[in-house]
C-alpha cells in the first residue's frame, strides 16, 4: 500500500501512465532521488510495469536512480563554457569541497559534475544548483558556493542575485521590435475562417525555426487532412542544441506571442489540447510560465470558453528531464507519453500519428511566435523580409569570442560577416552555425548567407577566435553526442562512442592518421544509416573540422603511421612505480604519452627502495 503522499501523487496524475515523466519529477522533488521501492509503487499507481518505470527513469540525465548529494552542482559543459574557464572553476569547487567530479561526497552532502549545455552561453560559465541556473560564475562565486554548501545554507537563502538570469536582446527586427497585446493575434485569426488562416501561414512561406526548415503551412495542412477528431498542438521548447538560448529569451520576453501562436494553430487544426515541452534546464521558467497561463485563463485568453467561447484550447507545460534527443519531434512525443525519448519509426509522421497516436503538430517556440505575427500582420509582412526561399527573420543566439554575446534578430539573407560585425566578432577564425550538429565555417566562408538555402541554422551561432584550439571543440562535441545518443540504433549508439574514444586518443597525443581515417569511416556510416537526425548529424561537425582545420588534428598526432590504443610503456608505469625505477632501461621507446598513467611526473619519483630490485 502506497503512502498517502504517493497516493496524492497518483491522483494528481490521474493514475495515467503517460504522465510518468512528470510523476517522476514530483517523486524526485519529494525524495531527492528515485528510490527503487517508490518506483515499484509508482508503477502500480500509474498502471505500468516496474521495468517501464525503470526504462524511463534511467533514460533521462536529471533523474537519479541512486542517492545524490543534498546539493547537486552541475557545470554546463558546452565549449563556450569551457572557453570561459568552466573546467578550472569546477576543479576549484571540487578541491574546496573535497569531492571528485561525478561522485557524491562521502558525507552525502554534495555532488559536482558536468552536464550538457544549459542554454546560458551568453552569460557563461554557467551551472545548475539543484536545477536552478546560475550564470557568470567566477572564482569568487565558486568560493562563496563552497562556503554555502559547507555550512549547509538552504538553497532558498542563497543570494537571489546569484540566480538572476538576463535576457539580452541586442538586435530587434520585425518579430521582437513590438509586443502586441496578448490574444490580439488569436482574435485576428478567429475573425478569419480556419481555412483562410491556414492559407495565410502557407502564403507567408514560414519555415520551421528549429533548424530543419520544414514548411509550417504544409505541416499544418497534413495534420488537418489526417482523419481524426482529436488533434494536438505541441510547442518544442526543448532547446538542447549547444550554443542556443534564444527560446529561453523568447519564453522570458515574448511568451504571449508563443501561446497566441499555439492558439492560432489550435484554431486551424481544431485542437483542444496543447503541450509546451520545456527542457529541464529551463525549470526556473516553469513557475512564471504556469502563472502566466493561469492569468490568461482568468483573462479568457486560454482554456475552456476562451475568446468568448470561440476557442476551446488549453496548454499544459510538460517538463523534460535532460535529454537532447527530445528535441526530435517523435522523441519529444514519446517523452510526452512518459516513455524514454527514442525517435519513432517514420513514416508515419507525427502529423498523422503523433501524441497518443493522434495527428499532432510540433513546432518550435520561435515558429509559434511567428505564427502569431502572421495572424496579426498578414502573410505579406513575413514575405517582406528575408529571401524568397527563407521568408522573414531569424532569431540567433550568439556566444563565444564576441564582444556582445546575446540574442540577435536578423533578416534571413544576412551574411555571416555582417552578423559578426553586429556582435563584435570581426576577428573570428571559425563559426559554428548549427550548434554541435552542423558545419563549422572558416573565415573564407563568412560571406555566405544565413538562410535555409545557404547556411541553415536553428539559431546557435558560436564564434571562435584565432587563438582557439578547434580540437577542443571537436572533442567536446564528440563527447556530447556520445552522452546524448539515445542508444536505439547501432550506428549512432556505438559510432558516437567510437568517435569520443578516437578523440580522447588524439588528445593523449597517441593518435595517428589512421585514427583520423577511422573518424571518416564513422562519418560515412552514421550519415544515412542512422535512425534519426541526431545520428545523421552527429559526425558533421567533426568531419567539417577535419576538412577545414586539419592542423587542429594533425599537430596532435604521435606518428604518421598506425598507433595502437594500448600503450606498452604506460602499461609498465605501475611496475616502474613499484620498483622505484625510472631509468631508460625501464622504458619502452620514445612514446610521448609515456608519462600517462604514472602516479607522478618524472623527476618527482619516490626515493629508491632500500634494497635494489633484482
Amino acid at each position, binding site marked *: 500500500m502506497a503512502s498517502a503522499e504517493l497516493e496524492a501523487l497518483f491522483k494528481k496524475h490521474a493514475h495515467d501512465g503517460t504522465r510518468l515523466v512528470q510523476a517522476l519529477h514530483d517523486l524526485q522533488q519529494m525524495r531527492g532521488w528515485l528510490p527503487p521501492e517508490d518506483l515499484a509503487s509508482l508503477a502500480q499507481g500509474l498502471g505500468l*510495469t516496474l*521495468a517501464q518505470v525503470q526504462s524511463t527513469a*534511467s533514460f533521462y540525465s536529471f533523474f537519479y536512480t541512486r542517492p545524490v548529494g543534498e546539493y547537486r552542482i552541475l557545470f554546463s559543459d558546452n565549449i563556450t563554457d569551457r572557453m570561459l574557464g568552466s573546467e578550472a572553476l569546477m576543479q576549484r569547487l571540487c578541491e574546496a569541497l573535497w569531492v571528485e567530479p561525478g561522485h557524491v561526497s562521502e558525507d552525502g552532502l554534495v555532488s559536482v559534475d558536468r552536464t550538457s549545455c544549459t542554454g546560458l552561453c551568453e552569460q557563461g560559465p554557467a551551472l545548475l544548483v539543484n536545477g536552478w541556473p546560475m550564470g557568470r560564475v567566477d572564482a569568487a562565486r565558486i568560493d562563496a558556493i563552497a562556503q554555502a554548501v559547507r555550512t549547509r545554507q538552504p538553497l532558498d537563502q542563497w543570494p537571489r542575485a546569484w540566480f538572476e538570469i538576463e535576457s539580452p536582446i541586442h538586435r530587434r527586427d520585425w518579430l521582437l521590435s513590438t509586443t502586441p497585446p496578448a490574444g490580439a493575434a488569436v482574435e485576428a485569426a478567429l475573425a478569419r475562417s480556419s481555412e483562410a488562416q491556414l492559407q495565410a501561414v502557407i502564403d507567408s512561406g514560414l519555415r520551421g525555426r528549429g533548424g530543419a526548415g520544414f514548411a509550417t503551412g504544409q505541416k499544418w495542412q497534413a495534420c488537418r487532412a489526417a482523419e481524426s477528431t482529436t488533434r494536438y498542438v505541441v510547442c518544442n521548447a526543448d532547446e538542447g542544441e549547444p550554443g542556443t538560448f534564444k527560446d529561453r529569451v523568447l519564453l522570458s520576453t515574448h511568451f504571449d506571442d508563443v501561446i497566441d501562436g499555439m492558439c492560432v494553430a489550435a484554431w486551424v487544426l481544431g485542437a483542444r489540447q496543447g503541450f509546451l515541452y520545456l527542457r529541464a534546464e529551463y525549470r526556473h521558467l516553469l513557475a512564471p510560465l504556469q502563472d502566466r497561463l493561469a492569468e490568461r485563463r482568468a483573462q479568457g485568453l486560454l482554456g475552456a470558453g476562451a475568446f468568448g467561447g470561440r476557442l476551446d484550447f488549453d496548454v499544459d507545460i510538460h517538463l523534460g528531464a535532460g535529454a537532447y534527443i527530445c528535441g526530435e519531434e517523435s522523441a519529444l512525443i514519446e517523452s510526452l507519453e512518459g516513455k524514454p525519448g527514442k525517435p519513432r*519509426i517514420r513514416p508515419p509522421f507525427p502529423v498523422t500519428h503523433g501524441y497518443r497516436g493522434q495527428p499532432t503538430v510540433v513546432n518550435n517556440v520561435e515558429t509559434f511566435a511567428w505564427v502569431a505575427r502572421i495572424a496579426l500582420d498578414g502573410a505579406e509582412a513575413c514575405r517582406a523580409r528575408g529571401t524568397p526561399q527563407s521568408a522573414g527573420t531569424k532569431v540567433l543566439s550568439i556566444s563565444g569570442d564576441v564582444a556582445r554575446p546575446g540574442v540577435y534578430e536578423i533578416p534571413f539573407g544576412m551574411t555571416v560577416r555582417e552578423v559578426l560585425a553586429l556582435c563584435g566578432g570581426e576577428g573570428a577564425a571559425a563559426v559554428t552555425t548549427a550548434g554541435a550538429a552542423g558545419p563549422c565555417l572558416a573565415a573564407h566562408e563568412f560571406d555566405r548567407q544565413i538562410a535555409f538555402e545557404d547556411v541553415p541554422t536553428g539559431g546557435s551561432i558560436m564564434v571562435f577566435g584565432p587563438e582557439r584550439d578547434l580540437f577542443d571543440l571537436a572533442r567536446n562535441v564528440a563527447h556530447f553526442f556520445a552522452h546524448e545518443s539515445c542508444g536505439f540504433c547501432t550506428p549512432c549508439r*556505438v559510432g558516437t562512442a567510437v568517435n569520443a574514444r578516437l578523440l580522447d586518443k588524439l588528445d593523449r597525443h597517441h593518435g595517428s592518421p589512421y585514427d583520423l581515417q577511422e573518424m571518416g569511416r564513422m562519418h560515412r556510416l552514421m550519415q544515412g544509416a542512422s535512425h534519426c537526425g541526431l545520428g545523421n548529424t552527429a559526425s558533421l561537425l567533426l568531419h567539417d573540422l577535419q576538412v577545414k582545420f586539419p592542423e587542429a588534428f594533425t599537430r596532435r598526432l604521435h606518428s604518421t603511421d598506425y598507433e595502437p590504443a594500448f600503450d606498452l610503456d604506460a602499461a609498465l608505469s605501475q611496475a616502474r612505480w613499484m620498483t622505484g625505477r625510472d631509468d631508460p632501461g625501464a622504458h619502452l621507446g620514445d612514446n610521448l604519452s609515456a608519462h600517462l598513467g604514472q602516479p607522478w611526473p618524472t623527476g618527482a619519483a619516490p626515493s629508491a627502495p632500500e634494497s635494489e630490485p633484482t
Partner: protein
Amino acid sequence: MSDAFTLDGQPVPFTPGQTLMQAAREAGHYIPHLCWHPDFTAHGSCKLCTVKVNGRFSTACTTAASAGQVVENRSPELDEKRRTLLQLLFVEGNHFCPSCEKSGDCVLQATAYEMGMLSPHFDHFFPDRPVDASHPDVLLDFNRCILCELCVRASKEVDGKSVFALAGRGTQSHLIVNSPSGQLADTDFALTDRAAQVCPVGVILKKRVGFAVPIGERTYDRAPIRVVQVPARAKPEESA
C-alpha cells in the same frame, strides 16, 4: 504483372502493405538483418538491413514496398557498412565465439561470416555486464546482448508477460528484467515462452543442454545464413 520492385536488378513482387524485407524474403531473397523477425513488429534499430531505395538509404524492414522502387541490397558499399555495423556490435559487447554455447546457431556470428567480417577492427569496450543465473531453467548472459529487443517484443506480444525491457541511454543501454529484484527467477518467465526461443545471440540460454549439438553441426555450420533465413522455396540465392 502484379506490383513489383527490383532488388539488385531482380524483380520482386509484393502485396500492398508489405515491407521490402517481407516481400524480399517471400521471394527468396536475403537482406541481412539482426533485429527483424517475420513474426514480430519491425524494430528498425540494428540497421543491418539498410538498403538504398531509389538512391536513398532506408531500412528494408520498415520501408513499405511500392511499385517501381529500385532497391540496392548486396552492393559492396552496403555490405561494407554492414561489416562496420557488425564490428561495432562485436566491440560494444563481450562476444567470445569460441566459448559461446550459441556459436554456430548465432545470427550475429553467421551474419558476420556472410559479410566477410574478419576481425572486430575497433578497440573493445569490454563492458561490465554480470550474468543472471537465478532462473532454474534459463541463464541470461547479458555480455552478448545486441539490444535487438526481440525478447522484449516476444514476451510482450506473444507471451503477454512483458518480462524484458531496455533501460538506460546510449552505450549505457541494457536489457532489464521486470521484477523487483531485477532477477529472472522472480518473474513468471518459462522455458516454453516464445521469448525464450527468440534471442538471435547467446543471451537467453537453456540450462543443462550446453553443447548438446557439437560445434560444426549447428544451423549455420551446415548452410550459410543467406540460405537458412529464406523460406525453402528460395532459389535465386542458392547459386550465390
